[in-house]
């Protein structure tokens, strides 16, 4: 099997080239931009299990703390200077008795990087107001040449878009086997990152001809062959 051109595999991550920049795709559903020492993730959906609890659905806690821990580990292992979240950092405004905002405060205290967030549709103003002041919010997309950091992925005249929102996944089949995996999806003018949160679902996408797709296995990122033209 040939690996798509311009990509090299290394442990749990895969280096690719995009818009003239080198990017590392990490199997823990994160993307690292070495030149800017920036770690990018999308759709963390912190506090989702608390929203379920309030509604009377018995989903266990732990996802929020564990996801914050994963972010901390990634920032440290890459030596990132900035963590940029591409929207939907949170799932819903916190309830009066929710404690996950405190967890975020503790986490910010320990993390050795700046944290910035492009607001997503789930990041309600009510949430943002109560969030720790150390977080920098971008209400709209943000230009970081040659990229445009955005939540809803779309082509942008200013640069190559990096977004989330869709929670992309694909079903792979072959030899009687079948698995569904989250993917990084690189289109011609913009890319869609997988959802980072461990309590998030995914939606199957249909890449077009010429798109580059990278499937995320539990221990590796694997380039998929291009769809037929």
């Amino acid at each position, binding site marked *: *099997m040939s690996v798509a051109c311009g990509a090299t595999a290394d442990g749990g991550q895969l280096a690719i080239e995009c818009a003239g920049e080198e990017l590392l795709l990490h199997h823990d559903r994160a993307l690292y931009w070495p030149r800017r020492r920036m770690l990018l993730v999308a759709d963390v959906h912190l506090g989702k299990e608390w*929203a379920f609890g309030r509604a009377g659905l018995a*989903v*266990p806690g732990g*996802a929020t703390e564990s996801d914050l821990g994963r972010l901390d580990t990634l920032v440290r292992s890459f030596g990132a200077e900035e963590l940029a979240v591409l929207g939907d950092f949170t799932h819903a405004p916190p309830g009066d*008795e929710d404690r996950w905002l405190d967890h975020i405060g503790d986490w910010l205290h320990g993390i050795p990087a700046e944290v910035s967030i492009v607001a997503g549709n789930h990041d309600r103003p009510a949430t943002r107001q109560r969030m720790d002041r150390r977080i920098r919010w971008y209400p709209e997309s943000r230009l970081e040449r040659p990229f445009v950091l955005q939540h809803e992925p779309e082509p942008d005249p200013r640069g190559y878009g990096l977004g989330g929102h869709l929670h992309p996944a694909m079903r792979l089949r*072959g*030899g009687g086997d079948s698995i569904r995996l989250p993917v990084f999806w690189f289109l011609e003018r913009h890319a869609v990152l997988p959802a980072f949160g461990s309590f998030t679902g995914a939606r199957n996408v249909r890449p077009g001809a010429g798109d580059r797709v990278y499937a995320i296995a539990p221990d590796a990122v*694997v380039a998929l062959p291009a769809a037929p033209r």
Partner: protein
Amino acid sequence: MNRSFETRLDEWLAAGGRALFDFQREACEAYLAGESGLIHSPTGSGKSLAAWLGPLAEAAAEAEEGVSRAGLRILWITPLRALAVDTRENLAEAAEALGSGWRVEVRSGDTSQSVRARQRRQPPEALITTPESLSVLLSYADGAQWFRGLQAVVVDEWHELLGTKRGVQLELCLSRLRGIAPALKTWGLSATLANLEEARDVLLGPRGRGRLVRGSAPKSVRIRSVLPRTLERFPWAGHLGIKLLPAVVEAIAAANSTLLFTNTRSQAELWFQALVDERPDWVGRIALHHGSIDRKLRKRIEDALRAGELICVVCTSSLDLGVDFSPVDRVLQVGSPKGVARLLQRAGRSGHRPGAVSEVLCVPTHAFELVEIAAARRAAEQGRIEARRPLTRSLDVLAQHLVTVALGGGFEAGAMRDEVSTTHAFAGLTDAEWQWVMDFITRGGQALQGYPRYRRVEEIDGRYRVTDRGIGQRHRMGIGTIASDTAMNIRWLTGGSLGTIEESFISRLERGDRFLFAGRLVELAQVRDMTAYVRRAKRGKRTVPRWQGGRMPLSTELADSVLEVLEAAQSATGQPAEVTALAGLLDLQKRWSRLPVPDELLAELTRTREGWSLFLYPFAGRLVHEGLATLLAWRLSRDASATYTLSANDYGLELLSREPPAVDEARLREVLVPGDLEGDLLACMNTSEIAKRRFRDIARIAGLVFQGYPGRGKSTRQVQASSGLIFDVLERYDSGNLLLDQARREVLENQLETRRMRGALESIAGRRIVLERPERLTPLAFPLWAERLQSQIMSSESWRERVVRMAASLERSASRRRKSA
């Protein structure tokens, strides 16, 4: 029965040309003596009346004594909403003719709000309802008020509920009703089962020693086959498909009205289309009926059938149950019946009159199905039919029931624990399990301590109640979901409903794809809000929907009987017509290898283009063979690493490998022992993936996922998640959750049929193993070889290897498509 009631009864029966059967009298007298019981007999033999006479006789006696009692007296439970209306007509007619003055009404998901409100103010004397609607009634605060004067519950078609979670739910509801009305009598109606005593005991709960009333003597059933005309041209192993269409058309034309049963909805669609193509003049007088077709349309078809307006209805198990279709005088079964009881039930749909002979004409779609038909006849003649085993310890259903009762006025923990333990399903409930379920509904279980606001059920002054209106509303909506899988509505783009279809089928289609549905070729236009919109399509390539659950495995009884038929086939004379028709094929099998017989296990090792195929024919049903194939591959590859491709059908299994496997009879004997079966299966199967699929139902029943209000999809999005996702989260953060255990247990017990697998291995231990090395694929081997498309690979590859391999195969098919484009 008092004299005047009996006189009136005789007059009414005589007016319809009928007379009272002994078993009807027996059931009525037993009821009047205060007994409970189960009435069993084949369909159409007056069971309903047998159960209905007791209550009516009692009412008549009360009326004579001048006693008048208001309120609900009799609850009649039917497994299908569709049956409720017809049942009502029958019961109401008798109630009126026999002078009870009783109102008989229906309450189901279809009942309008105004009727429901009136029923709550002025309950009818007799109410017909489904298990789910009964559960909803118990969830109302005044539910107990309603049932205080209840005298009896009659459960219709109990055999359909037994062995399912709906049955478990009903057991729990019955225990609640007995708690409210301690003198309650319970009566059940059932088709013939092998374990009737058990069926009765499960239904009657603590008063398990009720009466077993046997209905009129079993009608004689004739099982015949449509035999291919040209025997020598019989495809030696392939599918007959619809080759027998001319004979089927002939049989339909010769009859007044025909029911043509198929095993799957896809087969029904195909046969309907084929019949319409063959006889365009029948359009309008031939109909298609299956569980996915719109309910209103189904009702119209049933009415037309009853009125004798239809020549033929192509149907699935959707018409297995229910009322009398007296015009039907011909029953056809396409494909193997897979079980003896099922075939007898279907045969009973013709000559739907007590005592009449019923006949079923079987149409094989595959050569070996002829043997299965002969085997079904043999088993039926010997009275060997299948059992239905009741489920136990379904904690998801228990959790749902407890929330229901907490909603309906609340409960006290100790008393509830005792009440629940009177059911068969939870008689063995441990204190730890009870504690866990209570913890789950009050605090969400172990891992929810971080949620001060989580509460479904709260303890207030020693009683457990639901106080939050929203939670109550959502719970009631979830009650009805035990039976249904994720179904999407399917509608015309221009408006109008066609029915429902499994989401998994639609998700495999793209816009513009064509498929047959409800006898029409349609084209998928768009999917929105759990609805698939279609438009009429012109002729062209099509996909027939493959619905889940259509592929029943061969029952043990039938499989055993198949082996006996094959053994008997060795002798020269006295063969059934089916075996004679197959003589050529059986002879080939015998010459190239040998015929499988009861005291031997036949194995074949054959070299093919792909490698080495090891075939085994235990005749234990497809599910068992799938499990056995995996187990065998795993046990064989423990010593010598290898990758096997597996396939299985009802007769046997195949292990394909590149290198010749090091097996002989002794080695097969070694790996075919029961050993630590459960442990080995858990180790070798991707049980987690299968358990995740099983968990869908469990999560819905236990109230872990919420499907949303109809038509209000988006507003609840913040609390919607797939059951697969919840499964992952639970596994990671709450691994002690007993619902996960239950999912794994259900995989072993129901999906893999571990019990039957163990039985098969134990039976193999007592048989001689014979390994043949035929040079070519034998008639028994060929279908397995051809089935390999749906096979699985057993190997110890890592995730990365799996993905890389599948990516490679994606690439290959992509380049093929590029070339052909």
